[in-house]
């Protein structure tokens, strides 16, 4: 799904999304999913059903019951092409294992407008997700920081 171009949103609307919590829910990485993901990285499957850490991008997003399209929309992205990545931060406390029903939660932890010179700006939005084992033990935490580029001058 593409996001339709939009005018510069008010800064207050961007700040208002701080604290937005996604519904959350369970996510189980099936063997086929781990197999295909791992193949995409150019590596062999890890031993003992261990899931390749590359899963830490989409597993938290889909498990918290959101989508990349919704995340673009929450920040009122002008288009798919207007998103830039500032950083991805993956903290891994326990190995993730195939066919385990992890519990996922996620929220928006920061959102601010930044001037980039010549009257141009972007909105810097930070999402944080947690992946817990079935007994509640924290297995991983990920932080996505994206820049929502704005074509209209401030």
């Amino acid at each position, binding site marked *: *799904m593409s996001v339709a171009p939009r005018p510069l949103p008010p800064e207050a609307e961007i700040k208002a999304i701080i604290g937005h919590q996604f519904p959350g829910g369970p996510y189980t990485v099936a063997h086929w999913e781990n197999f295909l993901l791992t193949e995409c990285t150019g590596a062999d499957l890890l031993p003992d059903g261990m899931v390749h850490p590359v899963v830490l991008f989409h597993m938290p997003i889909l498990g918290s019951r959101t989508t990349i399209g919704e995340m673009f929309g929450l920040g009122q992205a002008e288009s798919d092409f207007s998103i830039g990545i500032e950083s991805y931060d*993956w903290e891994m406390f326990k190995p993730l294992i195939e066919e385990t029903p992890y519990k996922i939660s996620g929220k928006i932890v920061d959102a601010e407008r930044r001037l980039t010179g010549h009257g141009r700006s972007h909105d810097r939005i930070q999402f944080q997700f947690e992946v817990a084992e079935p007994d509640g033990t924290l297995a991983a935490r990920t932080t996505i920081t994206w820049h929502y580029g704005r074509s209209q001058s401030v």
Partner: protein
Amino acid sequence: MSSPSLKDVPPLKNVKVGDAIPDWLMESVRPERMRTMAAILRDPNPVHWDREACAKIGFGHRTINQGPLGLSYMVNMLHAWAGPGCVKRLYMTFPMAVLDGDRITAKGKITAVREEGGERFVDCDVWLEREGTNNPLEGRATIKLPD
């Protein structure tokens, strides 16, 4: 200075600040892998699967590799060196895009060796290198050394 191959590196118990981590090479970033990733990620962004869309924004009919795949090359380098499950933290920034057909080398250098709770950890700078350009990805990693 070139990085050592895996067979040349010192045992992990002897690692020290300044040591290079053996390189991991992705000979050619393949567009079909980006398409598979886009499907698994439910990623609607056409820059990962539509060369025409990429041409319109100045990437010359080459699709843009997903950011997480760039991180995965670092993970593969670190796993090859210190074993599966060794990565405890990976923080990555994205100065430049990786494109289909790129030849990419994951590289790393140790910046700290420390002990916490009886376990040994290594901090390192990690990056992706592409000949003729600045590094497309740069960041830091924390590795737990095997017992």
